[in-house]
């Protein structure tokens, strides 16, 4: 019985260590399944593209949401990313690298859209209340929900004000939960650079949010 309890504790510990944030991502799926879908699509299965979108749309939509401030704009941006995926997939050389390729493409799209909107004054035309307003989901604890929403808005506002390189590495690591290796591939940076840049970006975020919280 003690052995069973010990094994159960070990299992729970391993699960928690692998998922320290304690929440599940909607589109967590083995990389091999993505590879199979890419192959199936290339072999003429038109429905495989839909499954690919469904597998990755959650992350890509949320990635877009960190660059543009409204859900409508994020939806449009994320859809454009998948349209480019649809049209550019024949140029992908290694099917096993689809996820890294998708992120590279998505980040380029996000940067271009962000810069274009910034030139058009998009980010200064609306109040902060319009920014990152998530859908309200009815829960048993509306006060907690509101508090969480305010906290999320605060974090996203601080991230939005950060320089592009710091912002991207924070989004990829802490919001998108990519591994160091995945970030390295997506941004085309050596692993050591990813680690040092991440430490700098987190320190910068810490200083900015401290400053914001002190400001009345």
């Amino acid at each position, binding site marked *: 019985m003690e052995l069973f309890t010990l094994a159960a504790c070990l299992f729970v510990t391993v699960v928690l*260590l692998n998922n*320290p*944030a304690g929440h599940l*991502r*909607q589109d967590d799926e083995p990389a091999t399944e993505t590879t199979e879908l890419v192959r199936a699509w290339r072999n003429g299965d*038109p*429905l495989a*593209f*839909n499954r690919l*979108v*469904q597998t990755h*749309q*959650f992350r890509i*939509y*949320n990635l877009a*949401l960190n660059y543009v401030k409204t*859900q409508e704009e994020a*939806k449009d941006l*994320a*859809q*454009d990313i*998948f*349209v*480019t995926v*649809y*049209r*550019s997939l024949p*140029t992908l*050389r290694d099917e096993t690298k689809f996820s890294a*390729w998708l992120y*590279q*493409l998505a980040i*380029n*799209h996000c940067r*271009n859209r962000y810069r274009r909107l910034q030139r058009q004054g998009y980010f200064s035309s609306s109040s902060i209340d319009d920014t990152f307003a*998530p*859908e309200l989901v009815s829960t048993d604890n509306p006060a907690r929900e509101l508090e*969480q929403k305010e*906290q*999320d808005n*605060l*974090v*996203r506002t601080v991230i939005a004000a950060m320089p592009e390189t710091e912002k991207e590495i*924070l989004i990829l690591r*802490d*919001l998108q939960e990519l591994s*160091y290796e995945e970030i390295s591939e997506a941004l085309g940076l050596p692993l050591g650079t990813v*680690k*040092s840049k*991440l*430490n700098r970006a*987190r*320190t910068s*975020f*810490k200083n900015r*949010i*401290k400053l914001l919280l002190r400001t009345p």
Partner: protein
Amino acid sequence: MIDQQPCHAIQEMFSALVDHELDADASAQIKAHLAACPHCALEWHSFSESCRLLKGVAMQPVPADFLPGIHGKLAGPRPLLPRFLEIFSHPSLPLSSLATAGALIIAVTLFHSALSPSGHTDATPERQTAEYAMTPMVTVGMEENTRQAMEAMNSLRPSPVSFSVAPPSTLPGDTVIDMVPIGPDLTILVHASTRESQAHLYRRLLSQNHWRIHPTRHGTLIVFLDAEDLPSLRHALVPHRVAVEMVPSRANDLPASGPMTVALRLQAD
């Protein structure tokens, strides 16, 4: 020894400590330093707290009409500028190649414009059909009025999806959706290939509370809903593998909001 390093060297490892990237010895030595250095301990506290805030940001759900919107964009015309920008968004091409390709595209476009007296692109029906045929998922049955259905739908630009024509047998085992512009505001004919897939669709429709459903003795379901709930209905009709678009009875006459009636004719082939 890490614990003999200056404070800034310790603080450069905070990120790795948060991510559990350090081995046990290094972690223990940093913690020993933190125990002896109040300044670093304070920095570590705010660093780990801000990381907790970052990791706690809730992800947002994807809008329900996300996938049909992608197919709508794929089916629509491709403006030149986004296509050009798309090339520059491609991750695997070096800048010099992109610049050369860009110059070539501009040169060819100018040359083509000079030769073409009308100055517009030759979007012939054959080219359109070829582009639509690339759009997956939507199949319109070979009914007599398929052509009218396609024309009616394509006149609703920017439409979510354009149609390709293919016989129902091209998707063996799948539910084939056949759309004909008759009936109230909107009519959708659904040919379920098996009774199981029909039952699955019934269950899915009945489980929603966005609309009222009245069955008729001919197997048609009359759906009363608000026009704003059309995306939800469309989503309900896309259980796993088949996307559905709808054809209004009167082209360009689909209400944007307010009550409307949709006839779903469900038939087991």
